[in-house]
């Protein structure tokens, strides 16, 4: 294993008496597409700006490519940033924007021109090289900004909410384009986003941030299937969180038996050790992992359909259990004309495998 391209050690950044980034340590390997995911004000941009050199940490160290970045100007760092507002120079053409960083490296005119052309080909903007930024659509501007940031072939590309200014449809296409460019360049990408779906699609690893701290750093799958806290479970995707008490170990290894107000006796998987009996925990089940049956004799628990939302690809049901607790269940609509199997106020039975549910201690 080679040394990480980025090493953060106990990085702290305060503004006045407000701590924006709170004692962060992290290693990012070369070639990762790393996402910083968090709500507004969680410190994502501040961390990114410290990597770019626009802010300096109050304490802690930032190493990029094995070198301590303390006192190193943004211009001298082996990173480039793609700004949230794109920050394209309005008085320069697309080609001049993309070539700006190359000209600063003192390359010959012809060399700049070839590299600009190469970058524009990468982002499929060859035809627009002579336009000014105000003559471009939002998606085109986004690609100019990306090409400009990539032109200097940085070791690490920092992207602050690169897709947030695009509409939903374009955003989804652009996500895949971004991944293609990532594959083509082999550069390490660090992407800030507050869109968890975007992070899941893009990232090799995601750091979930809250109030200046990392809550969990993991692969998208791990974050989704094995969230460590209720915050992460709730932040990533949809989930049912039910209060429960541990009554003992479950029937097989890694399971715990719980008593849950909403459902009664249940079993669920533990990530790690089974908590001691009597421990207060949360039962977490993803809506799509719950089976729904109109056969009232089926195994599971009783519930009634309170509400349902047809979303095209799937339908979300809001159920009420016998004890009155609310529960979300989603079912894919795999058939086109099949009768809607479940309607308002229908009594149903719900069930889930113990392995599909997770015990959360915090």
């Amino acid at each position: 294993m080679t040394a990480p391209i980025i090493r953060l050690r106990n990085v702290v950044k305060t503004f006045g008496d407000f701590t924006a980034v709170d004692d962060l340590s992290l290693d990012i390997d070369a070639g990762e597409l790393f996402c910083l995911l968090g709500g507004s004000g969680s410190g994502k941009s501040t961390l990114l700006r410290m990597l770019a050199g626009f802010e300096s940490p109050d304490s802690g160290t930032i190493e990029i490519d094995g070198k301590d970045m303390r006192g190193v100007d943004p211009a001298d760092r082996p990173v480039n940033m793609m700004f949230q507002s794109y920050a394209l120079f309005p008085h320069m053409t697309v080609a001049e924007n993309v070539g700006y960083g190359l000209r600063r490296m003192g390359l010959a005119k012809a060399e700049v021109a070839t590299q600009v052309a190469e970058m524009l080909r990468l982002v499929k903007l060859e035809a627009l090289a002579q336009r000014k930024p105000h003559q471009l659509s939002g998606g085109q501007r986004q690609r100019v900004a990306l090409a400009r940031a990539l032109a200097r072939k940085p070791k690490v590309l920092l992207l602050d909410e690169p897709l947030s200014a695009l509409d939903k449809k374009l955003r989804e296409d652009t996500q895949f384009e971004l991944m293609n460019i990532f594959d083509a360049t082999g550069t390490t990408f660090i992407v800030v986003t507050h869109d968890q779906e975007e992070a899941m699609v893009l990232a090799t690893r995601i750091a979930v941030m809250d109030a200046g701290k990392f809550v969990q750093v993991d692969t998208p799958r791990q974050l989704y299937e094995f969230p460590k806290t209720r915050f992460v479970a709730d932040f990533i995707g949809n989930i049912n969180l039910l209060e429960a008490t541990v009554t003992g170990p479950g029937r097989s290894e890694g399971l715990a038996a719980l008593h849950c107000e909403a459902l009664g006796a249940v079993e669920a998987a533990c990530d790690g050790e089974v908590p001691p009996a009597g421990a207060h925990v949360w039962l977490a089940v993803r809506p799509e992992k719950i089976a729904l049956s109109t056969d009232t004799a089926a195994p599971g628990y009783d519930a009634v359909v309170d509400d349902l939302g047809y979303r095209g690809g799937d339908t979300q049901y809001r159920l009420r259990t016998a004890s009155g607790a609310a529960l979300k269940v989603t079912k894919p609509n795999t058939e086109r004309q099949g009768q809607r199997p479940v309607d308002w106020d229908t009594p149903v039975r719900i069930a889930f495998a113990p392995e599909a549910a997770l015990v959360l201690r915090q």
Partner: protein
Amino acid sequence: MAHAAARPKGSVSDVREHPSMTMRDRISGALGRRLVIGTPFLWLLIFFLVPFGIVFLVSLGAPEFGVPPYSPAFEWDGGVPRFVGSFDNYIFLTEDDLYWIAYLGSVKIALGATLLCLLVAYPMAYMIARAEPGMRNILLMLVILPFWTSSLLRIYALMGMLRQGGFINSALMGLGITDAPIQMMQTDFAVYLTIVFTYLPLMVLPLYSTLEKLDGSLLEAAADLGANSFQTFWTVTLPLSLPGILAGCLLVFIPAVGEFVIPDLMGAQDSPMIGNVLWGEFTRNRDWPVASAVAIAMLALLVIPFMLLRNTSALRD
């Protein structure tokens, strides 16, 4: 392109007109718009174009004793106006060196003073735009404050500083730096200094307003792409503040060319500016037609280059 063509006719985006806008709204909207555009037009017509026409007519006449002290350019001949004026006054301007020298001297002084103004004002505006928001208003206030006192008063204050026995000369001699007073009044130096001092706010304000609007992330982007602070200034800040530079330079240059109080009080008497010549023709010589011709010629010589400049820059965009 492909999906634009495939879009069915009469889709929602084809409906341009807002349904809730009635005929009356549209009419009163058009009226309102005409009023808004029309008011400055009317203003310019009454207070610029009409006086300009009168001055132009006067410039075609000849001086006379009497009231008014010139012969009219038109005579009424049986209810029909007949042109009796001439362009002699304009020809006269080209024959006497005085006018050319004064005109070129004025342009030279105005250009120099405008450039000095820009050099002094740019750093000021830059600093103000970069200051804390609370501080900015105080600093702007300080720039504008001198404008609230009469400009004549400020000129006399400067005279008090620059005179032979004035504050600066007494201080220099008192400190033993010079033995004899330095001649500062009645020099071009005094004229430049006073113009810069008087017109500085007109340069600072437009510069400030463009610099203040400058997006800070553009400067960060330049730094991120490897530019040092000088390169950032030269390639980003300066080009983006050009509109402010142009506006400030026009605001200073145009009144400075026609300035007559400052050269009259501070400048050497043997090199008058065009404003002083005009003033002299009008008052001392009581030659209204020549004075009018000077005014019109000055305007034409100032306006035509600017119109050409504007057209070329419009072509470029």
